[in-house]
């Protein structure tokens, strides 16, 4: 589903953050992405999400070479990917409910057609009672769960989650991990970036580790 071949990335004229990275992600697979702070996890996610172009090498996503896409094709490809940002990126002027339903609204869907679905998902992540509240008054963990719900609402084929349990307690982290595993079982590929060794120990999955700009894969 995803193929990286000798991908290198530098920001501007700096040193390469990623060097000669080659790996693949299979449909319906689950993997952790880890590495020290500043190693390039978020950078790798941005490459996968087409918000950054590699300085060299080849990235194939859903069978398409990403270097040849025009903006509208990027938009269409992104609809098949869900992403949870490390810094949430919720829109502060929209309620939790509106934030979570944004991907569907962008598709031009009627509100009535997705209301039940959004409400159910919000209940699942424990935000049933914070639905009509604006993000600035949510607690850190609540924001994170809203960001997760927004990534899931479009039933993506590929889920990228950047540190999705950094702001929640271990119990809730376990619960969210179970949510991701459920999702993976129902057919979505999941890439989960985390620092939390305890979390990774709870589920036996492939691990991608970035260190010094190189990617090491532990099956």
């Amino acid at each position: 589903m995803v193929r990286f071949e000798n991908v290198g990335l530098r920001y501007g004229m700096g040193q390469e953050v990623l060097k000669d990275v080659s790996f693949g992600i299979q449909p319906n697979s689950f993997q952790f992405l880890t590495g020290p702070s500043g190693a390039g996890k978020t950078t790798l996610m941005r490459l996968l999400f087409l918000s950054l172009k590699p300085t060299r090498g080849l990235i194939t996503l859903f069978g398409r070479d990403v270097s040849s896409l025009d903006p509208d094709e990027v938009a269409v490809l992104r609809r098949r990917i869900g992403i949870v940002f490390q810094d949430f990126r919720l829109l502060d002027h929209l309620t939790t409910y509106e934030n979570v339903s944004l991907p569907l609204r962008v598709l031009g869907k009627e509100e009535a057609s997705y209301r039940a679905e959004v409400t159910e998902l919000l209940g699942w992540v424990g935000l049933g009672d914070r639905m009509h509240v604006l993000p600035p008054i949510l607690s850190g963990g609540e924001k994170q769960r809203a960001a997760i719900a927004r990534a899931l609402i479009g039933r993506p084929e590929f889920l990228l989650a950047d540190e999705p349990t950094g702001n929640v307690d271990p119990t809730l982290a376990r619960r969210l991990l179970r949510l991701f595993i459920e999702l993976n079982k129902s057919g979505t590929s999941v890439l989960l970036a985390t620092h939390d060794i305890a979390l990774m120990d709870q589920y036996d999955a492939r691990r991608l580790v970035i260190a010094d700009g190189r990617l090491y894969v532990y099956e």
Partner: protein
Amino acid sequence: MSTNDAHSAGKTPASAVPGDTAREAKATAAKTGPKPRPEKARQPTSIVPSSTIAGRALVAVVAIMTFLAAITIGSAVAVRGTASQWRSDVTREVTIQVRAGDKATTDAQVQAAADIARKTPGIADAHILTGEETARLLEPWLGSGLDLNDLPVPRVVVLRLDGAGTADLARLKRTLTDKIPTASLDDHRGWSRRLVAVTDAVMLIGVVMLVLVGLATVLSVVFATRAAVATNRAVVEVLHFVGARDGFIAAQFQRHFLKIGTQGGLIGGLAATALFGAIAALPQLGLGGDPELPTVVSWLNPGPWGFLGIAVAVAVVALATALTSRVTVYRTLRTIQ
């Protein structure tokens, strides 16, 4: 699953979780943060918050610009009307005066002068004023009821130019003074030409102002749009991330700007219309009743064409605002992608 888990997942509605229901949450937010939306809002919150667009300032700019444009158009149309009146007056202004002497001689001289004038290229017609007409001209000075036949009042021939401006009045003047020593040509054209030049200058200033105002409007809108996209950069990014096309994003912005353009245009246009309406109404209010009164007031009545021009200006401003912002948003989006 621990109790903590149930707690934070909000699965136990009877628990002491704060802000348990949406109602409470709303009340909560009302006091401490931004306004919440009603639970089942029919109208979804606009994706680009209008508060970030500096909308009222821009409405003010657009309104002022439209007002200025409308005032300029109205004044220009009005001055143009006055000018064309002046221009037609010019044709009446050229006269030949023949000093009075013996009646028969004078009659012959007047006739000769008229003939010379008629033969001059560029002069359409020469009309010898009758005694009555002359008396009417002199009335302000000599009083009415005078018998001009008793007086050595000069005779007047009024020339009508053909409007092409080809008449060589200098030559006519020379010919006249050569052939009929008692005749003199009173050529007010220098005077009138100056008047026409002034109105032309006013028209030119009007056009220049219109161009300036248009430019300023477009620039303000471009700046405002760029600022709007810049302050909503986070929103644009999130929209991109959830798979929105540029067209969708641009539409979110354009919606605001069309509204701003329409509002501003209408405010400015209506203000200008009101001003001109008041000016046009002044004479009826007994302030400028004399129709011959050549005051600013009567000059500044733009008439139906002026008001039409104002309406067109409003429409142009609204459309230009929307269009400018659309183009600017597309351009700016390219830099964010």
